[in-house]
């Protein structure tokens, strides 16, 4: 049993519902639907403040030694490509494969959350799904599309 609940049972006052944020009236001005968006707005403001605070504190604390290399865009350690430069068309097969496995992950995560309640049925379904995707991977591999040359 959670700790707070135990306290309440022992000596706490009777439960009173929290005061409503808005004055009750016959026709609710702000519906539940819009109230959820209020939470989104609070999150946006909090996120902006957080970023501003972190950058601001960093600026105050760090030493400032400007060098030209430090202003390059970071691209996993290799020299950055120009913005509208040509990329090798062979990358596109990796982009496609990435999408396939990305989508696979999107389906597997919610399944994993409910895996226990879904039981053997869920496991079989997911295995069939993965088997179908593996068939696609096997096709790509056998057709030699994974070779760079």
């Amino acid at each position, binding site marked *: 049993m959670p700790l707070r609940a135990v306290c309440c049972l022992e000596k706490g006052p009777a439960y009173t519902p929290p005061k409503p944020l808005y004055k009750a009236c016959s026709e609710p001005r702000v519906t539940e639907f819009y109230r959820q968006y209020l939470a989104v707005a609070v999150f946006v403001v909090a996120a902006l403040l957080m970023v501003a605070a972190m950058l601001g504190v960093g600026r105050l604390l760090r030493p400032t030694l400007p060098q030209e290399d430090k202003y390059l865009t970071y691209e996993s350690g290799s020299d950055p490509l120009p913005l509208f430069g040509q990329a090798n068309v062979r990358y596109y097969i990796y982009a496609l494969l990435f999408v396939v496995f990305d989508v696979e992950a999107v389906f597997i995560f919610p399944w994993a959350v409910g895996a226990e309640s879904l*039981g053997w049925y869920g496991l079989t379904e997911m295995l069939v799904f993965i088997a179908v995707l593996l*068939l696609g991977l*096997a*096709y790509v591999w*056998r*057709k030699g599309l994974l070779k760079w040359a």
Partner: protein
Amino acid sequence: MNPVFDWHALAPDIIIVATLAIVLALDFTLPERTKFHTSRVAAVGVLVALVPIVTLAHNGHNRSMFGGTYVVDNYALALKAFFLIATYLTILVSIDYIEEGDYYRGEFYFLLLTAAFGMSVMASARDLITLFVALETISLPTYILAAFRKHDRASNEAGIKYYLIGVLSSAVMLYGMSLIFGLAGSTKLSEIYKHVSTHGAKPLLTIAIFLSLVGFAFKVSAVPFHFWAPDTYEGAPTPVTAYLSVASKAGGFVALLNIIFFGFYGLNGSGTEAWWPVLWVFAAASMTLGNLSALRQTNIVRMLAYSSVAQGGFMLVPFAAAGIAGAKGNFGVANSSFSAVVIYLLIYGAMNLGAFAVVIAVARRTRTGDITSYSGLFDTSPALCVMMTVFMASLAGIPFFAGWFAKFVMFRSVIEAGGTWATVLAVIAAVNSVIAFFYYSNIIRMMWFRAPAPEHGDGGVIRVPPALAGAIGVTSAITVVVGIYPQVFARVGELATHVS
């Protein structure tokens, strides 16, 4: 809680999926020399999938799954059978075409079966999301199939045009569907039906219905959304064109049937005034523009493309008739319109596939789609000439071929509807039947009365491979038998008893 599976009802779909997985696996394991086996596996798989359809039809229960989004009733079974037979005939037509050309063989049948799976699901879909996923499962493989002649510019153009316009129409349709969901609060067609029954056609619902109908109009190449069809049909490999014009188009019509009659046709005909004027215009424009453009074509595939636009217009007529009658409170027409569309689809499928099969057979020697290459066909290949005459006469709607019965049920539905607008539509359809007669009979005239043109091939007898001959035989048999004994399709009308 796990969803309940009715394995018997799902068996046709599961067999198709298993077959396409096997075909794909065979494609990357078999050596190039023995890859023709993929076509046989695909053909056998499609025939095996027909077995559970027969047992389900014999059993006769209506089955509903996944909260009523997937229904297997007699209507769904009839169309599943139609789609599978059309796929089987397309495989027969393709075998030699694919073997003799420079094509990826395994992938061809894999993509064909994927589209067939989408159609099979479409027949059962009673939910906007299922409907959309099924429609995309049909569309995506056919985009690739249209561009299957990889080294041919026209084929690439065909694929790109079809893809771009298909994606655009999907986006418009999805937007319409999202509005419908917002209004009805559910994606299930039965819930949308309840909403339409109580609220009627509010302006926003009318806009939503219009947007989703525009999407379907692209799919069934109804005028004014038909521009992709002639170029795509001409550029794509001819067996694919046959499949596009028959099965893929039928998929769009089945989606339209489901959404109109299970969703938008409210209780006592409420809500029908939201969509009948749109479909009326689509029908009238498709018939007229399709036929007038077909008159001027010199390439037989382009002619058949415009003819299929026009035939699509004829198939839209019963929809408009049902809406007109529903808005006036005459609900009985819904049943006869529904069965008219289904009957027209089945008959159109047989005769159009047959016509394309003959085109493929003739092009084996002449290597061209030019209409003049049909001159004197009677002298060189009398059997093909007779078959083509049957298909052309049937497409024109000459009595005692199946196409006549299709036109008959179409006219019956629109005359039952009654009223000014229905009468005008009936007159437009009648005038168009006469126009269509000209270009179909032009082919017949060429074949029977002209001397063979020496510039098209050696003038010898066209050798038709057995698979292609089989496809022509089956389609012509259906065309003739249904024309003489339309009673065999009259029972299709009973499938529609649960509508509205």
